[in-house]
């Protein structure tokens, strides 16, 4: 029977590791995702994700931990964006396009130079749960929990910033500092999510659960909580489907999230 087979697979170590890592990830991607949706920053998330490939290339070149090098490069891109936004008269989406595709192209070129390293590009683009080791699980949980703590600290200023930037500034909030911390948190999520959903689909994990939660929420905190639960459900359901149907993990998780969004549209709003 199919469920007996599924039960067997659930016992596999790599499956448990992937599940643990994915649930840790949804802990931070849910609350952060609602802010990405509110601030219309989906393209920003995509830009950081695109830059991840260059992070991988540099990590291989300098023999660094790949997640760390992805995090550092994403943080660099986020700061570069803030600086460009202040110095340039170009629109934000133009700057984002420049950074996204510039870093992606340089990343691909840099990887092609490294003949001695065999890289499975697809694994980075779409995730590879088989590559999730025990150490990864710990790192993801540590990253998610410290990210969550940081987000809790800037929660109210960040919320104020989404509502009205001037009002927030009059209340004594430093918009630039709060925005920078938020961008670094998105960079953290992208580094953490790379092995599970892959860089191409990371933004989906931020925005789809948040978009699904919107109809069922009456307050900002409630929306963040519901988005987290929906994200966790998508991770668990997607990993399960991936094993059962032998499909790639990242796309399966995102497809599950999209399916949950569709189901949410059918049910009456809260």
């Amino acid at each position, binding site marked *: 029977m199919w469920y007996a087979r599924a039960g067997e697979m659930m016992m596999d170590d790599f499956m448990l590791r992937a599940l643990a890592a994915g649930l840790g990830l949804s802990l931070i991607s849910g609350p952060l995702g609602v802010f990405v*949706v*509110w601030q219309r920053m989906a393209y920003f998330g995509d830009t950081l994700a695109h830059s991840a490939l260059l992070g991988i290339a540099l990590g291989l070149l300098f023999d660094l931990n790949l997640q760390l090098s992805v995090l550092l490069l994403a943080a660099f891109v986020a700061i570069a964006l803030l600086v460009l936004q202040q110095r340039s008269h170009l629109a934000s989406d133009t700057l984002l396009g420049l950074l996204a595709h510039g870093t992606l192209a340089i990343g691909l070129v840099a990887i092609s130079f490294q003949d001695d390293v065999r890289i499975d590009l697809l694994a980075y683009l779409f995730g590879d749960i088989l590559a999730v080791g025990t150490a990864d699980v710990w790192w993801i949980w540590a990253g998610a929990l410290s990210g969550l703590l940081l987000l809790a600290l800037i929660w109210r200023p960040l919320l104020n910033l989404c*509502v009205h930037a001037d*009002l927030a500034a*009059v209340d004594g909030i430093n918009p630039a500092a709060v925005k920078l911390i938020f961008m670094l948190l998105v960079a953290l999520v992208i580094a953490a999510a790379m092995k599970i959903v892959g860089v191409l689909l990371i933004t989906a994990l931020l925005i789809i659960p948040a978009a699904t939660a919107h109809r069922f929420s*009456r*307050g900002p905190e409630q929306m963040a909580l519901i988005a987290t639960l929906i994200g966790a459900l998508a991770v668990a359901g997607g990993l399960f489907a991936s094993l059962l149907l032998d499909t790639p993990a990242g796309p399966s998780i995102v497809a599950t999230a999209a399916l949950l969004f569709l189901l949410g549209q059918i049910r009456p709003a809260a």
Partner: protein
Amino acid sequence: MTTETLLRGEGLGVTLRERQLLRQVDFKLKPRQILTVIGPNGAGKTTLVRLALGLLKPTAGRISRAPGLRIGYMPQRLSLPDSMPLPVGRFLTLGGGDHAAVLRNATETGITQLLDQPMQGLSGGETQRVLLARALMRDPHLLMLDEPVQGIDINGQGEFYRLIVRLRDERDCAVMMVSHDLHLVMAATDEVLCINQHVCCSGHPDMVTRHPAYLDLFGEIDAETLAVYTHHHDHRHDLDGHVVRPGGGNDDG
């Protein structure tokens, strides 16, 4: 606040990208004083508000605030993301303050029945009241109101002005208000500052009752809350905003 002056601007000028938005603006705000800033579109009213709030640094002159001055700011409009579920009560606590403060300020502004409503569904007049309640949450020494009655009909305006005067009396706060109407200002206004990049004139408004034409227009009740401001300009502005003195000649002073 024990200081004599809450807020003082001296020779304020703002030049952004080689465009002069304000020049040589002086103003002063004392405790409990109500100052109304008027001027045509593009005159720099909002720039002056941003200077007063400390959101913008003057490129000339200086602005000084009384130490520890708390300003309650009511912005012109709110552009909330539609995707953010935000009940009015939660919006009020965003700048700090407990449930008791929410209740007190909501009662004062007459919005207690709206506390559970989503922000996005409010009417224009309701939004203005909620924004005023939010400004009150900080227990301010100074209320900074940027076009508080825009989108409210003339009856609603009278009611809103009465509310502001009551708040000034009960809470001893000063009020600095930007108004879009060049001739009718709040009756309780102590001083009117008419600006068009620079201060064109300033003074005290007259009671509407002294102007029968306005009285016919609005009727006794609303006329109580409004005052007529008579401008006494010694110059006018050409289309580029340059000062034109009577008798010819352009100058920028």
